């Protein structure tokens, strides 16, 4: 567990994605089975262990440390597991195999757990104690997604990410067959029901590029601003996957219950109230929950808008041309009103489609999808058969207010910019952006920040209002958490307006009017 503890510590302090991937890959390459599999599961949240409560841990300390010293220490450290890891007294520092720690947490009964945890802590040095306690409380918080874990696995051998995603849900910790496959062995048999299948992705396009193609070869439909999902019912086993193969069924039990068909369909997850589709902000409230309250199910009902069929009633349709798959889809009936079919758009010329795209019937539409009629369903992002033609981003002129120093390649540069708009006579922050500019522009922005600093808070500098940034973004949600009352989606700096006076920046009312 020493190497695992070291990995956790490095991941917790390493902000850059590529550096995290390298740390994880090196760990997985150097660590024997089954420990590396348990570590992988711990990091991706797939390790199902008995959750140790804070109360149990506090009870362990009550017998060992003066209450007042414990309170002072906890107050300073701010994290219970870390406080205990630091306070625990032992002279031993054994390298306990991770699988032993996992077995202890998986198999010990409730009554014996406090003593078992204490015995384990007695064997460990401080960094392993912290790793063990994080494992026990199920709270890794090292900023590593399951997707990133699979990318690190893909970097270790021949199978690529899509290959790994496809079989991921048939596997369970400690993933011995997966590691064997990566090392050159046989591909694990996909034994699980309702496995994830690689999703077909599109590439961006614009009107000029489209003019090279015959509109008659293509179908078009609205691009919905929800979440792309693969919904499956495989002989009664139901799954709801994101396009990267995360199983998000737990967050959407209402929709999972509605999957009363036989097949695997490709569609958009949306929050729907009757015929109206709610904005992405409403859908976001349903994401990432392990359990959903009754009130949330009622106020934010999930729905599925289907646009393609991968498997249907026992047949794999992926090899068929899109037009044939669509014919099967159009003939299908979905009993449950939560599920409907994404309608096709009527157009004869690209200009017809441009007109539709410019004036969509709902705010939740973020452009159009254009797909070749003869395209087979191919996993990955093949260039050509499918295009996304997104609506133009919203833009706003905002004033630079704060800047924060970046990490890694941007070390020493002020590269994370908080900007605001006018609310009466004051500027209120409305968002933060850290890309959209070139390296040369970053140097100029960095210089501006250094020359116009009025206050410092750790790595953050407050900047005198003097620079207007044109900020592009994909949407705006009402937000109670932000002082301004709005939250931007995917903001980036589209232009630096060295020329524009600060007084001419946009006003908060203008932004609020953009909320759907």
């Amino acid at each position, binding site marked *: 567990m020493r190497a695992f503890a070291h990995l956790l510590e490095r991941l917790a302090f390493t902000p850059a994605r590529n550096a995290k991937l390298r740390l994880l890959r090196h760990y997985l390459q150097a660590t024997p089975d089954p420990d590396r599999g348990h570590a992988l599961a711990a990091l991706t949240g797939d390790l199902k262990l008995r959750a140790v409560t804070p109360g149990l841990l506090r009870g362990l300390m009550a017998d060992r440390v003066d209450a007042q*010293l414990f309170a002072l220490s906890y107050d300073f*450290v701010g994290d219970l597991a*870390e*406080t205990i890891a630091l*306070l625990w007294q032992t002279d031993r520092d054994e390298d306990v195999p991770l699988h032993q720690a996992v077995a202890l947490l998986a198999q010990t009964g409730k009554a014996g757990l406090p003593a078992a945890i204490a015995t384990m802590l007695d064997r460990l040095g401080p960094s392993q104690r912290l790793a063990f306690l994080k494992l026990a409380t199920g709270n890794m918080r090292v900023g590593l997604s399951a997707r990133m874990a699979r990318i690190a696995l893909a970097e270790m051998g021949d199978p690529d990410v899509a290959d790994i995603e496809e079989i991921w849900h048939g596997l369970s910790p400690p993933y011995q067959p997966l590691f064997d496959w990566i090392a050159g062995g046989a591909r694990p048999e996909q034994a699980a029901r309702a496995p994830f299948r690689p999703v077909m992705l599109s590439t961006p396009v614009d009107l000029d590029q489209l003019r090279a193609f015959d509109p008659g070869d293509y179908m078009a439909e609205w691009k919905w601003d929800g979440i792309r999902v693969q919904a499956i019912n495989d002989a009664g086993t139901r799954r709801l996957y994101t396009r990267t193969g995360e199983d998000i069924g737990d967050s959407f039990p209402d929709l999972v219950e509605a999957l009363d068909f036989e097949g695997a369909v490709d569609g958009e997850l949306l929050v729907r109230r009757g015929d109206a589709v709610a904005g992405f902000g409403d859908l976001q409230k349903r994401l990432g929950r392990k359990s959903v309250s009754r009130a949330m199910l009622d106020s934010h009902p999930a729905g599925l808008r289907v646009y393609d069929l991968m498997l249907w009633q026992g047949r794999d349709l992926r090899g068929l041309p899109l037009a044939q798959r669509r014919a099967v889809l159009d003939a299908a009936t979905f009993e449950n009103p939560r599920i409907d079919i994404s309608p096709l758009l009527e157009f004869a010329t690209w200009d017809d489609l441009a007109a539709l795209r410019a004036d969509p019937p709902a705010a939740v539409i973020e452009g159009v999808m254009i797909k070749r009629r003869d395209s087979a369903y191919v996993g990955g992002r093949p260039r050509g058969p499918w295009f996304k033609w997104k609506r133009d981003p919203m833009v706003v002129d905002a004033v630079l207010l704060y800047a924060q120093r970046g990490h890694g*390649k941007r070390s020493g540069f002020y590269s994370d910019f908080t900007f605001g708009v006018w609310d009466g006579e004051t500027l209120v922050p409305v968002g933060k952006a850290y890309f959209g500019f070139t390296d040369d522009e970053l140097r100029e922005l960095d210089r501006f920040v250094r020359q116009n600093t009025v206050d410092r808070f750790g790595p953050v500098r407050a900047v005198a209002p003097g620079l207007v940034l044109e900020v592009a973004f994909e949407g705006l949600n009402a937000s109670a958490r932000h002082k301004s009352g709005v939250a931007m989606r995917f903001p980036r700096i589209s232009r630096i307006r060295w020329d524009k006076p600060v007084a001419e920046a946009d006003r908060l009312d203008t932004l609020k009017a953009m909320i759907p």
Partner: protein
Amino acid sequence: MRADDILHPTEAGLYCPPGDFHIDPIRPVARALITHGHGDHARAGHGAVLATRQTLEIMAIRYGADFAGQRQVAEGAIRVGDTTVSFHPAGHILGSAQIAVQPDSGPRIVVSGDYCRRANPVCAPFQPVPCDVFVTEATFGLPVFRHPDPADEMARLLASMAEFPDRPHLIGAYALGKAQRVIALARQAGIDGPIAIHGALQRLSDYHVEQGIALGPLIPATAADVPAQLVIAPPSAFASAWVQRFRDPVIGFASGWMQVRARARQRGVELPLVISDHVDWPQVTATIRELAPAEVWITHGAEEGLMRWCALEGIPSRPLRLVGYEDEPE
């Protein structure tokens, strides 16, 4: 004479009426006794300064040769007013000393200044001095602070340099003491090649070498392209444009505070190295047990924790609440 009459806190710092001197005063005074050369303890502009030869020389490097009206090297027992004072190694940085104050009648007080009990290649080890009142810091005065062996921390630095061979490793370390210690530890850990240092470390590092402390080949980290994977700089340099010359650096920081993750995060550090020149909890409590003073006075830091421990041990203690000393001075 009661201990309070021999030494008590004033706005300028700890004052000794029978000797008419201050210890580590934070503003200019007529006569100052100075424990060590860190900027918050050793300030310029006093009438007379009594300190170890190395502390005086460090002050001259930092403030110029005329940093005080008179300068006296502390050697052996010295009469100051109606007291006898002596200086004893504190194990904190080069030249650092504890000051023992012995009035003609009354208790003996040892002001330890900042001190450390762990072996340090750049300074003499702490010397326990029997006393009635022990004046201690409590920078790391909580039981969560148990600093690891610095060799283990260097092993982590080496592992990171091997894991990311294409990334320069920039380690923040205070210019006096910590920087040279980190360099010396890196040499002990087997780094033989050039180590680059920020310009702010040059003169103080040269001085350590003059004092016979081997630091190996050091090159200036000022060129556009610095040919060394390990770079030592004062932490303040990381906020300056100086960092921009390094491509995708790993930023580290060598400090006792790095033991607590939230503190390391506040610093924006990617590689926290727990290396401290102060006593940690086991050291401070062991020192108090070893000296067994009648009373403990606590200058600055996390005094509540140490006072609680003293209370549990039955040792009278009181906080001096001295202001003006930083947690870990630059």
